[in-house]
């Protein structure tokens, strides 16, 4: 009997708790963030971007639709960086919290399961944290991605290498996770097409802690350019061990980790490392909608007390794109907003945003371009400079990397 009572009580508690009354002029946006678990750092950046956008919009009186203005309200939960939680929480966001629109969790691995739910309920979800293309190839109708997808991450690095050292011997060493594998698979093809020689192409387990033997293997392969890495600690460890073990690379491109300001902790090991970036402070696009880079960076710093990085910028852009689409549609109905998103082609401080509309890739980003940032000494301090493409660069490239 005890058991029955407990079941019933828990069921009742779950059912009646938190019945959020929908206020008249509010738009509810739901998402999960990885407050705990390994994705916490990147996810936090993205979440700050989301929140900054919400605060900005609300301060400006909300989103204006046909003479009415809607304030934006967020509902958010911790997904623990675990895929299994995401479906439970997105269902809850849609059904219990009555979210009108959804933002994606961080990473492809979490976005994919969330998509099953949002598509099932026909809700729009805008993605800025999962760069992998596979979820866009399964016929989804309401999923949109504002960032450049995985297969273009290292295009810039390959182009730059082709220009500076057409005879470079590449070592591609990357984490065994979906995102990194997709990025490097595309990079390997682009390298071959550019006539660069790939002398090593291997993935390592994401839980690898000591890269000593791997660095030795890179040295043995006679490579002089390194492309790879994956997520957070592995990328940083690789950079440090290549430096400690004097691997003498002329070129090092590492995914994700060097885009964070904490990468400067590595000191000399960080110098010269390049990172493909969705956005950098030095990038200057003329926005048709929303703030300029300078305005964004300053306001973000004032409000969030943190330097804006690309996760924050892309998170913010998700909001801007949604806002733009709602205003264009003149409605908050899903189908009208989705149509507006399909027709979107705007440039914000983040760059140009346009979505693929063919059924095989619906929602994939079709226009945004990445830049390549390099860690250089600026006034005696380590900082990132944009070095590629040429037309966007804020400093000359350091090639080859100077060993100390």
């Amino acid at each position, binding site marked *: 009997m005890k058991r029955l009572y407990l079941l019933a009580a828990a069921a009742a508690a779950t059912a009646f708790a938190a019945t959020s009354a929908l206020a008249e002029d509010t738009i509810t946006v739901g998402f999960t963030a990885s407050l705990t678990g390994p994705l*916490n750092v990147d996810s936090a950046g993205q979440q700050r971007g989301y929140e900054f956008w919400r605060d900005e919009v609300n301060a400006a009186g909300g989103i204006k639709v046909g003479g009415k203005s809607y304030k934006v309200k967020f509902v958010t939960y911790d997904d623990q960086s675990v895929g299994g939680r995401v479906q439970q929480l997105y269902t809850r966001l849609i059904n219990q919290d009555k979210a009108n629109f959804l933002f994606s969790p961080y990473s492809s691995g979490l976005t994919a399961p969330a998509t099953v739910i949002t598509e099932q309920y026909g809700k729009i979800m805008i993605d800025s944290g999962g760069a992998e293309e596979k979820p866009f190839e399964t016929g989804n109708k309401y999923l949109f991605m504002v960032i450049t997808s995985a297969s273009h991450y290292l295009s810039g690095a390959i182009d730059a290498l082709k220009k500076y050292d057409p005879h470079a011997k590449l070592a591609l060493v990357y984490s065994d996770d979906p995102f990194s594998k997709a990025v490097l698979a595309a990079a390997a093809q682009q390298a071959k097409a550019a006539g660069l020689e790939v002398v090593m192409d*291997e993935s390592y387990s994401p*839980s690898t802690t*000591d890269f*000593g033997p791997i660095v030795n*293997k890179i040295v043995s392969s006679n490579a002089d350019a390194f492309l790879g890495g994956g997520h957070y600690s592995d990328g940083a*460890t690789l950079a440090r*061990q290549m430096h*400690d073990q004097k691997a003498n690379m002329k070129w090092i491109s590492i995914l994700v980790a060097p885009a964070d300001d*904490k990468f400067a902790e590595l000191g000399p090991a960080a110098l010269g490392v390049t990172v493909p970036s969705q956005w950098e402070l030095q990038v200057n696009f003329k926005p048709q909608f929303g703030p300029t880079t300078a305005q964004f960076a300053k306001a973000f710093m004032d409000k969030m007390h943190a330097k804006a990085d690309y996760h924050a910028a892309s998170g913010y852009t998700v909001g801007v794109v949604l806002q733009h689409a709602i205003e264009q549609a003149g409605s908050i109905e899903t189908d009208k907003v989705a149509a507006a998103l399909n027709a979107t082609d705007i440039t914000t401080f983040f760059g140009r945003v346009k979505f693929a509309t063919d059924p095989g890739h619906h929602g994939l980003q079709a226009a945004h371009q990445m830049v390549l940032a390099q860690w250089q000494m600026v006034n005696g301090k380590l900082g990132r400079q944009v070095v590629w493409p040429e037309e966007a660069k804020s400093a000359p490239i350091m090639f080859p990397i100077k060993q100390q």
Partner: protein
Amino acid sequence: MLGVLASIIDGVLVGLVYGLAAMGLTLIWGVMDVINLTHGTMIVAGMFGLYGLASAVGAPPYLALPPVLIGGFLAGVLLYWVAVHRMVGRPPLMSLLSTFSINLMLIGLGTSIWGTALFNVEVALPGFSLGRYTFPGAHILAAVLAALIAASLYLFLQRSRLGKAVRAVANNREAAELVGIPTTRVLAITVGCGVAIAGVAGMLIGTLFPFTILSGDSYQLKSFVVTALGGFGNPVGALFAGIALGVLEGAVTPFVPVSWTLVIEFALFVLVLVVFPGGIFAARRGAL
């Protein structure tokens, strides 16, 4: 060929540190049948101790050793009184639950304070080169320190009065109690030593690689592997098994795709367990 040799030397250097880390686990395990699931987190605590002292205060990294050792010991004694003491005499491995809970708390607290951001401690020491291959000074020093600490633990267990008491309690707790050994205090000290060693190992690892609050998981797993290979409750075996693991990682990498290293490592681990249920270094079981 030189590359293989270099990887093997690397393996020995890092393996000594793995071995030291595992000694912390195996000591507690062997003496009181407690699997300390906070082990990984204690290793991380050592890393953060190093970071706090070296990067924030600016002290030379290796000066962090004594404070980490003492802090780890105190933390271990506290852990004993909070989570382990009440579990003695309960169904086997109940301590698994209590240490699991403590670990959740520590990780939760750590994540809300530091996030999973990356920390790095720069250690500028001249390295040693073999052709194109370089062994960083920090690796060499860490290995030497690990060996020294392991040796002191061994001497402590073999020679000192307290060490003998620890071994007596491990052998037969009731008998030890009967001959007047204050077993509870000995157990508390054992957990203290185990945690202190884990912390110091973490501190040494912190001089080698960057780390996050979650880095402990991998090292805890490695410690399990090392403990099993070395034989439970056998600190000397653990040290050799640590080296064996490091050498295996180093020796395998040049010949197979890197991503298969883990498959080989764990398949071998299960195989060794099944074939030598007492650990490969079981012959030295009398060590504790």
